[in-house]
């Protein structure tokens, strides 16, 4: 028997009411105009310029990385173009001592948090020294298992809380990641403990080839946070000011003891999922691509900054040249990394004394490798 619709009992309406509340938060529109003056985070001229520099740098890094990958000079690479605002503007709201638990596409944030570029390249190539993290660099290496970083972030957040630190942990996954059990467990744990975590869902529309529409019946991914009882927001992920403002707000709330926040950044990845073989033309059209390119974060931020006399072609070229030079130098440095030995692997397998099997194999390989 179908239930009668009334105010007391109408779960369908409840769902719709919640979904209707998730308007997309935007500050800077596609034309580079401020459309939400009240929410403008009022970054200083230096900060605005720095954020732009990071985004341009990252676009160049992406282009070069794709080229280097095709030349066989890089290994695993997940393209980032289209996600610069989502990645760099969210990171820009963090402080040095905050933690980042990245997904595999979130290498730019690690670099701007302090991971040397040549190490990012080593990681891409599959060299163990690519994750030989410096003391005090509060990051994890990029996570490969979808969602694993979410439950771990809940643990880091609880740790920071127990230590009484004025810091947060930020973790990233994609739209596909929100289908994983770990996504729910992570946000639920952090919510239950009211821990200082910021969960970023970079909704770039496709989990490899599976479109967002096949991923879930939920109208937004942000609303999934509501079930865990945590503040959640849907942001224009190609608007750096909106992403920054939302993250800054989440960070403040976390530091005030008000627990975690979920931020869905609506964005787009122009490239393939990774350079390892998926072909975006199989699952999306050039019309869709160009539709999203109109919303490009760098184009709109450039227009905005130029109107404020903070940006010029000359300035952009400087950043591009600097990026190219640094990438070149970093590749050279990565080329100089020592050849990996099995004894290196055996040495880092366990902390402390080697178990008998590892010790035996260490001796065997020491002998082999001395020849």
């Amino acid at each position: 028997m179908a239930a009668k619709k009334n105010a007391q009992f109408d779960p369908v309406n409840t769902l719709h009411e919640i979904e209707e509340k998730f308007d997309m938060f935007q500050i800077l529109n596609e034309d580079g105009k401020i459309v939400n003056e009240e929410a403008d985070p009022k970054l200083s001229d230096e900060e605005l310029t720095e954020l732009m520099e990071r985004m341009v740098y990252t676009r160049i890094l992406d282009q070069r990385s794709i080229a280097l990958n095709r030349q066989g000079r890089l290994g695993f690479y997940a393209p980032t173009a289209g996600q610069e605002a989502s990645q760099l503007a969210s990171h820009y709201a963090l402080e040095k001592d905050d933690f980042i638990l990245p997904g595999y596409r979130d290498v730019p944030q690690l670099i701007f948090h302090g991971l040397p570029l040549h190490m990012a390249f080593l990681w891409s190539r599959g060299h163990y020294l690519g994750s030989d993290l410096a003391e005090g660099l509060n990051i994890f290496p990029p996570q490969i298992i979808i969602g694993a970083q979410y439950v771990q972030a809940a643990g880091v957040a609880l740790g920071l809380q127990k230590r009484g630190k004025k810091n947060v942990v930020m973790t990233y996954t994609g739209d596909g990641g929100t289908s994983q059990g770990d996504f729910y467990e992570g946000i639920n744990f952090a919510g239950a403990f009211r821990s200082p975590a910021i969960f970023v869902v970079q909704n770039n529309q496709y989990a490899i080839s599976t479109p967002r529409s096949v991923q879930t019946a939920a109208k937004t991914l942000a609303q999934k946070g509501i079930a865990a009882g945590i503040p959640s927001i849907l942001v224009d992920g190609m608007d750096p000011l909106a992403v920054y403002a939302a993250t800054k707000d989440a960070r403040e709330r976390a530091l005030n003891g008000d627990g975690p926040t979920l931020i869905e950044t609506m964005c787009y990845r122009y490239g393939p999922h990774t350079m390892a073989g998926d072909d975006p033309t199989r699952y999306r059209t050039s019309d869709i691509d160009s539709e999203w390119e109109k919303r490009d974060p760098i184009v709109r931020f450039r227009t905005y900054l130029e109107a404020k006399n903070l940006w010029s072609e000359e300035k952009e070229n400087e950043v591009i040249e600097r990026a190219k030079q640094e990438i070149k130098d970093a590749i050279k440095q990565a080329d100089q990394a020592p050849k990996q030995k099995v004894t290196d692997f055996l040495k880092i397998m366990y902390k402390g004394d080697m178990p008998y099997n590892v010790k035996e194999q260490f001796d065997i390989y020491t002998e082999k490798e001395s020849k």
Partner: protein
Amino acid sequence: MAQMTMIQAITDAMRTELKNDENVLVFGEDVGKNGGVFRATEGLQKEFGEERVFDTPLAESGIGGLAIGLSLTGFRPVMEIQFFGFLFEVIDSVSGQAARQSFRTAGKLNAPITIRSPFGGGVATPEMHADSLEGIVASQPGIKVVIPSTPYDAKGLLISAIKDENPVVFLEHMKLYRSFRQEVPEEEYTIPLGKADVKREGSDITIIAYGAMVQESLKAAEALEKDGHSAEVVDLRTVQPLDVETIIASVEKTNRAIVVQEAQRQAGIAANVVSEIMERAVLSLEAPVLRVTAPDTVYPFAQGENTWLPNAADITETAKKVLDF
């Protein structure tokens, strides 16, 4: 010294380390107010507060991730998986993540996590509670796996596990929790991980076992004694890494061996032990090394347990086959 059951010794180990190191945290499902479904954490929350001994939401992967994240901020998590059959819910955190922490960070970060969990048959639990899944975790490099068989060992090994810089899976056989008492020192002491213990000396055959099968093996050794055979019983205590020195020394002394495990023949640790003996001591052997195990079926429902689990009679019978070879 006090007379303690294994579960009291386990509680005492956690109490000792909570006292000794403020970075030790104990958490899991129902470990706080309830003191754990087996009362392994009884009284700890009252003594050390909710900040250090706490209940989590019901989600094993979340508990595993929580432990990894906490270890990244300098804590030494002692997490409980309520029953080891729930391992599958947390296998990524245990085998996929914690185990590779040191390796994937070139040795810079580690995961000093202790993963405690009850397991083992003969106590009529529902499905997915008793299964012997030690082989699954032991096959993952980066983890140590400990299975005590006595109260004394349990305390010393658990303290070592908590102090270890690597993830340690510490499996507590449910049937042993309250089956007997033993003198256990109230102060801190450690038993090194990776060291087996000769629980009974003998000269004719070595019976290698772990967990509840150590007690069955000791019973079998007594039965064999009555028939004039002197059996040595080696308790592995740590099943990953194995103490090959003790195993080989014993086999070289007795020239005959059987390996006993509660797990199915295709699971567990016994096959590994046999391989080590074959590689290292084949010329000492007077007979093939045989295994005593459960059959290769899914773990049976409660009323089927006792016909399924290996016992002292099976061990005696197999030992005799080897002795008569």
